[in-house]
Every structure is written in structure tokens, then in C-alpha cells.
């Protein structure tokens, strides 16, 4: 399958003295689900901002759908990449439908009115994300999970082949986290979208993503399949935390082991059995 995002020798730093990202090289296949993980402050969001054209690389090259990223106008790039930021409440009270309709901005004419196809795309995005039921409510009157679903609906309505998400589930409870990832996986499978999500939740990433880009605090990174990159040793090395790694069927899961983990008999038992092996 062809690559939709390609990064070569990417370097970036907010000041000349401190480079956050050094010599990054990776490709993202069309239609894949990739996560960017790593500890705080290693440059995950910075990398996402570089991929969506919000920041320009100091050195290196980013290619979006076979063309250099800087060859796109802001409008054309918005027809290729949609971005979902962390949960957010706007200053003025736009309704859910008005917010999702804004996704059509890169396609609108001079006066900025939606055409019939635009309206249909918005309607479909509201239905897919199950947000049509509160389309007339304002964003401020929604829960965090509902609001995040609205922003994902807006990204779907933008009708782009690439979807970038910055910690889309950081403020959500377990049920809503799973619901959001289910939604993204469905979009990947049914619409062939390429999804790149920054996340701290390695369990959800292991379950939903095929590939991972794991950024380390020492400015190193590893790219590969989640199965290979998410190993007990690599997680410990990257995050500086011991984890218990288990499996349920084919799904891998990680339990971080803090100072008091030995007090939990179940984990102690598992740890002992792992040591014996």
C-alpha cells in the first residue's frame, strides 16, 4: 500500500539551542491507524503540529499524499488533513450542527454558504458519530465525551483522507474512551481513512493501532508495529515505569507497577509466575 505521509530527516526545536525532534524518518501507510506515544514533553504534539502544517520544520521534509507539505495552500491542506484537538469550549455559543458545518469551510465559495452536498456530508457525519440527537444544543451544554464526539464529527465532515488527533480521550471516562476509539476504527475500516493519534493510553493504542511511533525522553524514537514496539522492556525504558504485560486472546495489555503494586495480590501472583518462567 502507498504511503500517505512521509517524513525525512525531520528536525525541529522551538529555540535554536534545544532541538525537540532530531532526524525523524518514518512513513505512514494509506488507510492505517498509527499512534504517537511517549512521556510528557518529548514532542508528540509538536510532531502532530508539524504533520498538519501548523509548524514548519527547521530541517527535513514532510510529504502529504505524494506532494511536499509546503506546496499546499492552507485551504488545500485542509482538504487533505483534519485535526482534532483536545477537548475545548469555544467563546461563543455555536450549536453542534453549526460547529460540524464549519468543517466545510475549505470547500465553500466566496460568501461561505454550504451547498446541498455540503449539508448532506454534515448530516452523515452527525449520524455516524451519533451526535445528530443533540445537533441543536450548544457545545457548552454537552459533556466532555459528547463534545469530543462533536469535534470528531467535524473532522469526518471535513472529508479528508488523513485524520490527526491530539489526545482525543485524555479527559474522558473508560466508556467514552472506548467509544471514541471504536468510532475511529470504524472510520478507518469503512472509509479507508488514515488515522494518526497522539495518546498516553498505551493499552488502547495496543488494541486499536497497527503501528506506533514511540518517542523517548532522550530524543530517540522507535517506529514499527505495536506488537514489536510495545514490549515490556521498551515501555519501561521509554516511560521509566515497570509494567506487567499480559494478554487476553490476541490483545496485549499493560499494567503499570508503582511503588505499592506488590500490595495487590493478583499482580504479585502474576509477577511471581512471570519470574518463574
Amino acid at each position: 500500500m502507498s504511503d500517505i505521509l512521509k517524513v525525512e530527516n525531520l528536525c525541529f526545536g522551538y529555540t535554536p539551542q534545544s532541538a525537540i525532534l532530531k532526524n525523524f524518518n518514518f512513513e505512514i501507510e494509506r488507510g492505517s491507524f498509527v499512534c504517537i506515544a511517549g512521556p510528557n514533553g518529548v514532542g508528540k504534539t509538536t510532531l502532530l503540529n508539524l504533520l498538519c502544517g501548523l509548524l514548519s520544520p527547521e530541517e527535513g521534509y514532510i510529504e502529504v499524499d505524494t506532494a511536499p507539505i509546503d506546496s499546499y495552500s492552507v485551504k488545500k491542506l485542509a482538504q487533505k488533513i483534519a485535526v482534532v484537538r483536545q477537548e475545548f469550549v469555544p467563546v461563543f455559543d455555536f450549536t453542534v450542527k453549526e460547529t460540524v458545518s464549519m468543517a466545510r469551510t475549505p470547500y465553500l465559495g466566496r460568501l461561505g454558504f454550504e451547498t446541498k452536498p455540503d449539508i448532506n456530508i454534515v448530516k452523515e457525519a452527525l449520524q455516524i458519530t451519533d451526535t445528530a440527537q443533540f445537533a441543536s444544543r450548544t457545545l457548552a451544554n454537552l459533556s466532555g465525551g459528547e463534545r469530543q464526539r462533536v469535534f470528531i464529527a467535524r473532522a469526518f465532515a471535513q472529508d479528508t483522507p488523513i485524520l490527526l488527533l491530539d489526545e482525543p480521550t485524555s479527559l474522558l471516562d473508560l466508556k467514552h474512551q472506548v467509544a471514541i476509539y471504536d468510532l475511529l476504527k470504524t472510520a478507518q475500516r469503512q472509509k479507508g481513512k488514515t488515522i494518526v493519534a497522539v495518546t498516553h493510553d498505551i493499552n488502547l493504542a495496543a488494541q486499536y493501532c497497527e503501528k506506533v511511533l514511540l518517542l523517548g525522553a532522550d530524543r530517540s524514537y522507535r517506529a514499527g508495529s505495536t506488537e514489536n514496539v510495545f514490549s515490556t522492556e521498551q515501555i519501561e525504558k521509554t516511560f521509566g515505569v515497570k509494567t506487567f504485560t499480559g494478554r487476553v486472546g490476541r490483545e496485549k495489555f499493560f499494567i503499570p507497577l508503582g511503588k505499592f503494586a506488590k500490595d495487590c495480590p493478583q499482580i504479585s501472583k502474576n509477577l511471581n509466575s512471570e519470574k518463574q518462567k
Partner: protein
Amino acid sequence: MTETLTSKKLAITFFFCLIALVAVMALCAVVGTQKVSLAKAFSGPADTPGKNIDYEILIGVRLPRVILAALVGAALACCGVVLQAVLRNPLADPYILGISSGAGLGAIIAVLSGLTWSFWGGSPIAVFAFIGALITVWLVWCIGYLAGAGKSQVTTLLLAGVVVNAFFAAVIMFLTSIAKSDQVHSTIFWLMGNITEKSQSVLWVSAACIIAGIMTLFTICHRLNVLTFGQDQAKALGVDTAATQITAFALAAFITAIAVSLSGLIGFVGLIVPHAVRLVFGPDHRRLLPVSAMIGGAFLVVADTIARTIVAPAQLPVGVITAIAGGPFFLILLAKYSRKVSWLK
């Protein structure tokens, strides 16, 4: 489900608001201390001046004044809408970027210099206020741009506006304190906002500039909607944020400077009209801007009619009326709609 705003729906809303504005203007033109006979007034001008007094009062004096009030009201309301959106600040008004102090300083310099010439029908006060307002906005923009490390940061712009406003206010106070009492009176009256008769050429040129400016602002309204979500989100949705901001600031400054040079500093219109319209019609700028123009125009026409009739034969500065009437009116709206609106909670 809420319905999508189409050009047809907007045209219908705009048409009804326009009819309301014209009705208010017609009604207010008839109201005054001197009663006029409509039949006589519409019979046309007499051969000799002073013969058809009804025509001269209605068509020659009141109608231009009503048109001027509508223009200034529309201009201030639209600039309030645009600046609240670009600065993402519900407290923004047309004077937030230092226009009030710049225009005030220009006006007091004109008064103190004792100039009596007229430029294309505009008094020295109007001309100096216009130039002062534009120079100040340019100064604020440069300070904001330099302080924001080469980017037009909203916070640095706001702070630059506050600093320049404060500094110029101090200079105005100094100049007022050394001025003669009659000069001070005319300056203060101007600073309070005052709609007075203007020459035909000033009225029509200003009307053309304000209407063209508002129509240009309308073309960026869909981008303003997205910009209220912040620059990052707007860029991700394909909006050239720098170009949109510069267009919005430049046009808002230009329109406000014209309004200020026509009528002095009229407060409240640019702040409360956008909020009142937003509370009733929603925050979509494609509807908010044209409806605010109509409502802002109607509001100032009514306020000016009250200002010229309530203590007749004397006249109050219209700024006094907008502040007195606008405050309670806004409180009523606030009480009615506050439950619906997040930033009021």
C-alpha cells in the same frame, strides 16, 4: 435538528430587518419638536427658500440626520461584531484598539489649534479625529506585532490597545486642563458622541465607504465563525488566519474612524447590539453581521430622536442616551437568555 443557514434564509431575515430599519427611520424623521405636515413636505421644494418649511425640516434637516444616525449605528455595531470575533473577546468594542483615545486626541488638537477651515465639508475636528484614529490603530498594531515576536497575537494586541488608550487619555487630560473653558466644552460635547447635520457630500461619501466596508466584511464572516475557535483550529479548517485578521482589523478600524469623525465617541452601540443580536439570532457571523447593522442603525436612530426631543429645545449628546437606554436593555436580554449562553454563566 436545527436548520442550516442558506443564502435564501439570510436574504429573508435581512429583508425584514431592513424594512424594520426603514420604518424606524421614517417614524423618527417625523418625530420632533416642530410638527411637520407630511402632505406638504412631500409636495416638493418651493421655488423660494423658506416657503415650504415642512419640506426643508423633513427632507433637508431630519432625514439626513436620521440617515447619518443609521449609518453610524450600523458601522459601530458591525465593527463590534467583527472585533469580538477576531479578538475572541465578548467585551471587545469598536474602540478597543485605541481608536477612541486616538480620535479624542486628534479632536482636542484640532480644537486647541483653533483651525476653522473645512476639508470637503468636514470640520477640522472630524478630519483630525479620523487621522488620529487611524494613526493610533496603526501604532497599536505595530506595538502588538513587535511584542508578539512578529505574529499578530490577540493578547499582545489587546494589551497594546490598553496601553496606548491609557497614554493618550493622559495626554487628552493634560491638554484639556490647559485649554480655555469654551474649548473644553466643545471637546467634551464631541467626546460624549453627538449626531449633527453634515454636508451632503460628507454624508454620501461616508455612506459609500461604510456600506462598502460592511459588504467586504460580510465576505469574511464564514471565516470569522471558524476564527472564534482559535487560530490553530481555524488554520486546520483551511482559513488563512493572518489575512483574515488583517482584513478584519483594517476594515473595522477604517469604518470606526469614519463613524467617529462623523459623530464623536458614541459608546455602548458597538458592545451591546452585537450581543443582543447574538442572543436572539445566534452567533453565526453570516447572519450576525447584517442583522447587527440593521439593528444598530435602528437603535441609534431611536436614541438620537430621544436625544433631540427629550429636553427640547436643547439637545443631549446621543452617547448619553445610548448609555442610559443601552445598559438596562442589555440587562433585560441578559436575564432572559443567560441560561442559554455559556459565557454568561
